[in-house]
């Protein structure tokens, strides 16, 4: 099974924390969408004929797409790929776009899952992050989405924001849990380089949360979600049983995926490639029939390390016996030796299944890094 990602690189306005590729200039919209169609054509062989178990429209803001535009993309997808009848087809949407009309259009389309960027139910947070919607819109769209018949819904929340107390966070989370969604994601606010937020922090205008704040709010999150029947199946993702995200899970399971659109990444097991993060360059290259991508071949070490860094984020962890089959006993023996240097209460190893504990999850990056095997390791 394989996944298909389409990057829709437009936004009405820039959120202060976002470092994804997007443009608020909409005049290139037509050309970019035409190029997406061309790229789908050009890349039809990338997944070696595998059937798509998921399609994901990310951004940017895919909810800006009109019915006609969405249609054109689906036509191109079906023309070049075989889509499993039960495939998960997700579209990221902002609350301000999700009026009743749009929701109905989307529901009529092949899209069967919405990922809604709620982020917060507090007006001051939305303002600070420069989100385009108001709290009322967030509430309305969740209610309406259910009403028009979307069963698969997920929403994003952000915690450890500046000036967010633990009580604020609990209140926010509680507001979302009211809707009893099958799935949600909650992210600690990360101050990314080259964002407005980064500049505010640097200039001392915004005081970021400390890692102690992040840790406490992360713990609150896990406790509350689990008590409401969610599985904490990835660091930032929570699902009711059977409701895990198919598409995003493919990233963590090292399954192949094809990314279409500027800045989109693709992975086929042994190489990774990414398109240029620039709409104009992207359009120009495709108009010449070229793929504006940088390709990185993944060494056996890279592949193993990536499986560690993504796998250890999940509730399943990684299976050492399976890694052994794939990468050979020598590397995995090194990995097992590396485990001995970790704190005992960070992980569990049962029947070769290596899983991080709650306290280990707080240090998932550090642990992955410590377990990495580098090409020049002499052992």
């Amino acid at each position, binding site marked *: 099974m394989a996944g298909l990602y389409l990057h829709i690189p437009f936004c009405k306005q820039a959120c202060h924390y976002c470092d994804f590729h997007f443009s608020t200039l909409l005049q290139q919209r037509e050309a970019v969408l035409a190029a997406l169609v061309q790229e789908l054509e050009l890349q039809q062989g990338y997944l070696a004929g595998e059937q798509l178990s998921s399609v994901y429209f990310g951004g940017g803001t895919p909810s800006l797409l009109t019915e006609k535009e969405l249609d054109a993309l689906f036509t191109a997808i079906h023309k070049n790929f075989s889509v499993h009848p039960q495939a998960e087809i997700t579209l990221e949407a902002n609350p301000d776009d999700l009026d009743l009309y749009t929701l109905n259009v989307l529901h009529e389309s092949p899209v069967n899952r919405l990922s809604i960027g709620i982020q917060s139910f507090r007006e001051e947070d939305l303002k600070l992050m420069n989100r385009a919607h108001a709290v009322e819109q967030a509430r309305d769209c969740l209610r309406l989405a259910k009403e028009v018949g979307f069963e698969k819904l997920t929403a994003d929340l952000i915690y450890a924001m500046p000036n967010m107390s633990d009580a604020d966070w609990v209140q926010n989370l509680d507001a979302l849990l009211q809707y009893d969604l099958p799935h949600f994601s909650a992210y600690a606010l990360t101050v990314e380089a080259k964002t407005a937020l980064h500049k505010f922090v640097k200039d001392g205008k915004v005081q970021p949360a400390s890692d102690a704040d*992040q840790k406490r709010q992360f713990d609150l999150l896990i406790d509350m979600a689990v008590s409401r029947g969610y599985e904490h199946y990835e660091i930032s993702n929570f699902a009711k049983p059977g409701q895990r995200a198919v598409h995003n899970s493919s990233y963590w399971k090292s399954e192949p995926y094809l990314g279409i659109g500027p800045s989109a990444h693709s992975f086929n097991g042994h190489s990774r490639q990414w398109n240029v993060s620039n709409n104009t360059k992207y359009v120009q290259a495709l108009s010449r029939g070229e793929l504006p991508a940088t390709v990185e071949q993944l060494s056996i070490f890279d592949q193993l390390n990536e499986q560690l860094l993504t796998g250890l984020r999940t509730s399943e962890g990684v299976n050492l016996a399976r890694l052994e089959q794939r990468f050979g006993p020598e590397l995995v023996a090194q990995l097992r030796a590396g485990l001995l240097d970790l704190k005992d209460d960070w992980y569990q190893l049962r029947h070769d299944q290596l899983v991080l504990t709650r306290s280990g999850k707080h240090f998932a990056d550090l642990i992955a890094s410590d377990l990495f095997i580098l090409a020049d390791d002499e052992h």
Partner: protein
Amino acid sequence: MKNIRNFCIIAHIDHGKSTLADRLLQVTNTVDVRDLQAQTLDDMDLERERGITIKSHAIQMDYTYKGEKYTLNLIDTPGHVDFSYEVSRAIASCEGALLVVDASQGIEAQTISNLYLALEHDLHIIPVLNKMDLPGANPEEVKDQIVELLGCDIADILPASGKTGFGVDVLLEQIVERIPAPKGDPDAPLQALIFDSVYNNYRGIVAYFRVFNGSIKSGEKVKFFNTGKEYYAEEIGILKMKQQPRKRVETGDVGYIISGIKTAKEVQVGDTITSMERPATEGIQGFELVKPMVFAGIYPVDTEDYEELRDSMDKLQLNDASLVFEPESSAALGFGFRCGFLGMLHMEIIQERLEREFNMTVITTVPNVSYYCTTTKGIKMTVNNPSDLPDPSTIDFIEEPYINAQVITKADYIGAVIELCMSKRGIIKNQVYLTSNRVEITFEMPLGEIVFDFYDRLKTISRGYASFDYHQIGYRESRLVRMDIRLNSEPVDALSSLIHTDKAYELGKKMCEKLRELLPRQQFDIAIQASIGAKIIARETIKALRKDVTAKCYGGDISRKRKLLEKQKKGKKRMRQVGNVEIPQNAFLAVLKLD
């Protein structure tokens, strides 16, 4: 002999010495154009990268002028103050020198001190104005500087460009015309001056020499005057692009000798080779044992690599006799070596060579100079490591080495340079305007102060324009104390330093702040303290790390994240655990970069 010309090139780093030398080799057909790697004379990678000739070499060119064949020996000299003794021996082997000055930059301190060396040895100086092709060239002003410095005629200055080859023909003619042929007695007993040596994996040490009197024959038995050791001259010859064996190297000429010597220590620069058959009664004047000026501990990051480090250091010493070391142990770092270096650059070079050529990851501790400590019982001891300083109550007084330092700078930066030198306990001795815009300032200051981030700051405050040279002028009594650093109460001896009492509080504070910056956060709080004896003079805390996991990890994040975590892992491998605290390799040198 009358058709031999021996000369060297005196130039500041970056003034284009190597490029010009390449041109000479090319025009005389010593080297083929297509073999001409940029900067042919520098054959260590490190040298080429740094653009500094670390080890001097020599090369012979054939040149026909007015129908006569001439042998031109170019003896290359290192361009850094750390290697000034090697420069002096190279200069002693020549009759002439090209003074190469960058037409856009003018004369620098290092050039002047080497020029004085050359004049002391009565070398004929040919001033060359290089980089005439550059748009920023300012030949008139630089010519004035040269005339003032040499007292030469303005017409004596030759314009050239190593880059375009302009002026190189005239330069070769003038080398023959102006530089005197060597003098010497072909019938006298052999006296040949060793001015350099290199290590060859298969042949052992190759020593480079200049014959002053007599001649050296292949296969004869020779003696090195100062070491007293005797060898067979297994192979002798001259130096073209490759070594060319000869039966005999005559008076005035430059050549090499291979005699099965395995360690660089036996071949001392400045030593005299003489023949056993008819030995000379005395060596050539000016021999000195090279003394290390700066000391630091070198330790393997991984304690298990101690033996491997020893092997590597032994091998390094084979071709770098100026490196000295002895085993030492540190409570914090375990077993390692206390090493003596000619200067800070030499120290950096050794550390880099250990990493590059021997794949060793090492920790270099805070460097220091050599102190004299006199105890209350009147015993005078040499202290090369702050940890060796006896208990303060038993110390009568401590002496530290002083230097005479020359800084040449643009007039605009005088204030800043003086301020820097004063902050380094310098005393201004003299200030001379070389031209209306260039000043030479002379200071006396403790050598120990230039170890602490002096060069970098001098470059910064003068926007790279100031140049610096020094020589040692003996020891003076100073009020010095040892400052220790503790991490979670555990003293880290490798971070101890000897500092002036008046600066202790300021330095202690800066040191703690710097360490707070450099030490990664760990799973617990880390207390950093600076102390003198039992007294804590500064303190900082690094808060424990509560969390290390990024929120998002999707398709576009994986590659970037993998690289980030790989880097983190590599960084960790270069850390050393002391007590329960992981210390990155670079933190040990933190004290050098406090501003």
